[in-house]
């Protein structure tokens, strides 16, 4: 041990004289190990770290399904009274709570921020083991039907909206006209369980009794979505037992209360229990494994590069090692010398790697919260430290081992006499070939997979929408007060706002409409004489919508104000849907024909050119209905280069009716980008990985080939002297390595096949004949890199006089 310390000091001293070697190793290993530590820790947090909730393995979410005869099962829907009954009468959970996530505008703060609010029952916080920075959580005083308007805010809200003020418990917030007294702030460390979707973080928790659908408390026929029942299973009850009991309980009351309802004749309900762990993990498992494989591949390439650096370094240290041997150093002593150096280098690398990993955590916190679960729990932890130490030690050992295997200890003793020439320290051709094969194999896999994923994402990103988002904005309103007035009272306010907007000099056009990205995916209608419903996507839009978005009408006309006012039963469909309809009814003119929405006939008054939404791979059939009375969505088109602020709209609105506020106001272009976010993340991650792979492989191959060229300097000079042309030498280098490179590519293909079999579910949508094109591109890139790596080291030989090369300097 003491010896090792001395050796490390000695190594430090030695390495100070080799800054380019040291920096190459540390940068290569630091960068890739940083990425590895980052993803490894992410994988640990997502896959293995216990959920940070007490008895987490007993926490379950209850999802209900309503089965109506001859209809698709209605999943994830409850009737309000059914859900409440289940909550109050169940006996399988030791504790349970209902939660609903929602959005609202906070109207007491000056800038009326839009916030994520969640209504929860008091049992929720203790169940999740919540701690508080200040104050308390919901208690019996906030139990169901207590009508005590209080709120627990998140640490983020406290920080962002209240500057962490200490008198926060004397403050309140106002949502939809109800003022909630702040009774507590959740601890910064509280990780909200993603029970509805990944990355959801509530800004404020409100007392259950004020949830928006309480008006449905006696309505069994209205099914609502988004309400979530979570509970902690009693230890004595199994998962199946609980499912059975809860299903019976829910079904009993459901049957009693819906028999008379025409919609739900002979219907049944049942529930499934899903563990919180599975819900939170969702389907991110294979994604994280794929990412991990990608990064491990990068690390292997980096290790191959660094192995080569270490081998050249050892060859260079031959003289020094020979002196040690002459002084009586045994093989194990020489190993210690080499190990000290590699340990020092790996320690420095892993320190850089930790810094990079921490930076990576920041990136993940910023951009991946909606993509991977539990990223809020990602931080420097024991796992990461242990992983870092294990990785650094094993790599140091491996590099030292490879270096010491190069030394021919017997020959070393004669090195001093023979003036340092000869075979004491040699990089075997086999090791070099292995390095090339592994680099090429992994580079082939990573580049092909990443460019394929990148292409997929890039196509979606760059695909034209089919309408013009320029200068167009989507506006949504929020009403502060309970209850929201009926539609016929809201409509005059909307009309007035549209009039006033239209009068603004900046505004070219304004209409009451949903933005083009709002679409129900599973709307159904029928055609006369055809039983089978046609499933398509649907939106509700305003008058002049298509003119505003410059989406060309092919036939007929678009909605007018009169259509909206008269609640006309009309529809504008896209060309794709028109084609579908005329495929079924080839003899009828689609325009002005009728489709049935339930029993109601609706006339097709227009056919519009196809548009393609960002999340669809192909054009989908679509029909557009007139905007409903009282719907508070707007599209505003400004004149070119004009700007209309959210505040201005807020002022206009205030003058019309102070109870209305701006909920959201976004540029359609930005909205488009928001929808493309997963693709953008995908494209940047895969693009970066592909580039990094190519770069590392290029640097690595160059390093290996330039070192082997260096070793063959005299041979090359001799060949040149006896009349070999440059081309012949280049061909020689290529020929010597083409075997290893081809083997690498073949190995890469085998790994790829294995990957595609192992991950067929995730990857199958990318399997297409484009893969062949991508493969060709990958091969081309690798060949260019390999050829470049073979050629560049030779250049120095072509620029110097051969006599100099022969002198062997």
């Amino acid at each position, binding site marked *: 041990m003491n010896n090792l310390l001395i050796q490390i000091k000695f190594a430090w001293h030695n390495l100070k004289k080799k800054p380019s070697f040291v920096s190459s190793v540390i940068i290569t290993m630091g960068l890739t190990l940083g990425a590895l530590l980052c993803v490894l820790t992410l994988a640990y947090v997502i896959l293995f770290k216990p959920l940070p909730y007490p008895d987490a393995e007993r926490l379950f979410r209850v999802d209900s399904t309503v089965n109506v005869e001859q209809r698709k099962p209605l999943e994830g829907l409850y009737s309000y009274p059914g859900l409440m009954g289940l909550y109050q009468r169940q006996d399988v959970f030791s504790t349970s709570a209902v939660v609903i996530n929602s959005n609202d505008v906070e109207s007491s703060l000056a800038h009326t921020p839009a916030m994520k609010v969640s209504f929860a029952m008091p049992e929720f916080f203790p169940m999740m083991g919540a701690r508080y920075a200040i104050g308390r959580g919901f208690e019996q005083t906030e139990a169901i039907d207590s009508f005590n308007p209080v709120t627990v805010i998140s640490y983020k809200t406290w920080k962002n909206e209240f500057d962490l003020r200490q008198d926060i418990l004397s403050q309140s917030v106002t949502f939809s006209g109800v003022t909630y007294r702040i009774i507590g702030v959740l601890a910064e460390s509280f990780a909200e369980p993603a029970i509805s979707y990944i990355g959801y973080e509530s800004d404020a928790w409100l007392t259950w009794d004020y949830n928006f659908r309480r008006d449905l408390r006696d309505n069994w026929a209205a099914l609502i979505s988004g309400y979530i029942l979570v509970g902690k299973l009693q230890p004595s009850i199994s998962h199946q037992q609980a499912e059975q009991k809860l299903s019976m309980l829910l079904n009993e009351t459901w049957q009693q209360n819906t028999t008379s309802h025409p919609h739900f004749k002979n219907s049944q309900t049942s529930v499934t229990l899903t563990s919180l762990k599975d819900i939170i993990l969702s389907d991110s498992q294979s994604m994280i494994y794929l990412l991990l494989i990608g990064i491990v591949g990068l690390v292997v390439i980096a290790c191959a590069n660094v192995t080569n650096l270490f081998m050249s370094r050892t060859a260079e240290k031959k003289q020094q090692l020979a002196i040690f041997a002459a002084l009586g150093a045994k093989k194990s002593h020489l190993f210690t010398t080499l190990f000290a150096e590699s340990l020092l280098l790996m320690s420095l690398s892993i320190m850089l790697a930790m810094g990079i990993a921490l930076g990576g955590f920041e990136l993940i916190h910023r951009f991946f919260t909606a993509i991977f679960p539990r990223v809020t729990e990602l931080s420097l932890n024991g796992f990461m430290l242990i992983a870092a130490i294990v990785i650094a030690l094993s790599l140091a050992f491996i590099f030292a081992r490879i270096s010491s295997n190069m030394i021919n200890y017997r020959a070393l003793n004669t090195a001093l006499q023979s003036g340092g020439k000869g075979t004491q320290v040699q990089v075997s051709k086999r090791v070099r070939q292995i390095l090339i094969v592994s680099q090429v194999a992994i580079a082939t896999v990573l580049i092909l997979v990443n460019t394929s994923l990148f292409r997929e994402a890039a196509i979606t990103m760059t695909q034209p929408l089919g309408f013009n988002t320029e200068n167009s904005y989507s506006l949504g309103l929020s009403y502060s007060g309970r209850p929201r007035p009926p539609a016929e009272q809201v409509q005059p306010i909307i009309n007035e706002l549209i009039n006033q907007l239209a009068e603004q000099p900046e505004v070219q056009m304004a209409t009451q409409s949903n933005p083009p990205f709002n679409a129900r995916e599973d709307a159904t209608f029928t055609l006369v004489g055809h039983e089978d419903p046609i499933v398509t996507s649907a939106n509700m839009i305003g008058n002049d919508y298509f003119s505003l978005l410059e989406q060309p009408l092919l036939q007929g006309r678009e909605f007018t104000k009169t259509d909206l006012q008269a609640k006309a039963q009309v529809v504008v469909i896209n060309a794709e849907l028109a084609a579908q309809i005329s495929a079924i009814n080839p003899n009828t003119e689609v325009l002005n024909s009728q489709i049935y929405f339930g029993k109601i006939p609706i006339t097709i008054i227009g056919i519009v050119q196809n548009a393609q939404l960002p999340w669809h791979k192909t054009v989908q059939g679509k029909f557009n209905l007139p905007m409903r009375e009282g719907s508070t969505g707007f599209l505003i088109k400004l004149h070119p280069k004009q700007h209309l602020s959210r505040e201005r709209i807020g002022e206009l609105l205030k003058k019309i009716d102070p109870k209305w506020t701006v909920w959201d106001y976004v540029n359609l272009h930005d909205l488009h980008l928001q929808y493309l976010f997963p693709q953008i993340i995908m494209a940047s991650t895969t693009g970066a990985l592909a580039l990094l792979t190519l770069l590392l492989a290029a640097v690595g191959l160059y390093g290996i080939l330039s070192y082997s060229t260096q070793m063959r300097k*005299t*041979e090359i*000079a*001799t*060949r*040149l*002297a*006896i*009349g*070999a*042309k*440059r*081309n*012949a030498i280049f061909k020689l280098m290529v020929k010597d390595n083409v075997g290893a490179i081809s083997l690498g590519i073949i190995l890469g293909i085998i790994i790829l096949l294995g990957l595609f079999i192992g991950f067929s579910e995730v990857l199958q949508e990318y399997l297409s004949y484009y893969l062949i094109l991508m493969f060709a591109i990958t091969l081309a890139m690798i060949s260019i890199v390999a050829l470049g790596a073979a050629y560049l080291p030779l250049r120095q030989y*072509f620029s110097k*006089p*051969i*006599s*100099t090369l*022969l002198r062997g300097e």
Partner: protein
Amino acid sequence: MDNIKISMKNICKVFETDELETHALDQINLSITQGDYVAISGPSGCGKSTLLSLMGLLDEASSGEYLLDGIDVTKLSLDHAAELRNQKIGFIFQSFNLIDEMTVFDNIALPLSYHNKPPSKQAITERVNQCLALVGLSNRSQHKPNQLSGGQQQRVAIARALVANPSILLVDEPTGNLDSKTGDQIMEVLAQLNEQGTTICMVTHDPRYAAMAKSRINLLDGKIS
């Protein structure tokens, strides 16, 4: 006079290193004719190897004019120089410079493979065996160089230099890495080759060996003295 193999006029060679200018060769004038055996000698550092490199087109002169076989080779493209080296020059180095991974046979055949139109396999075998016989190593063709003694290795190098029927053999200290007995044997081979008509230009500082040549050039500080 078409039997002049090498003709140099006012050849100078200046090496420019960081701060130092070394005038390795200064105004060299010489010619070597067909069948000649020239020995270049002189003290260490006087420019012998430099002169041989220029003759062998391994480097370019800083100034002056050089005709090889009547061709002006003062300024050549790299590939053209390679072609001429391949056709007209045979090198023999002090440290043999054989390629360890190749058999003796392949080492000798190497220059032929760099011909613009490489001869047939059969022609190569014939020629290589001929050269092996010439240096007395017919039974070693499938050995690797490191399985041979120093003298044998140098004889392989001579065979390799001869294989392409060069206009001139350029030899730099052929016996420098050999003991004196083996050295004598090598000198014997060279003398025989010259008798059979090969033109030779050899660098040596052993006066005994220099005496074996037909003509002698003495270099001193880059000048012919």
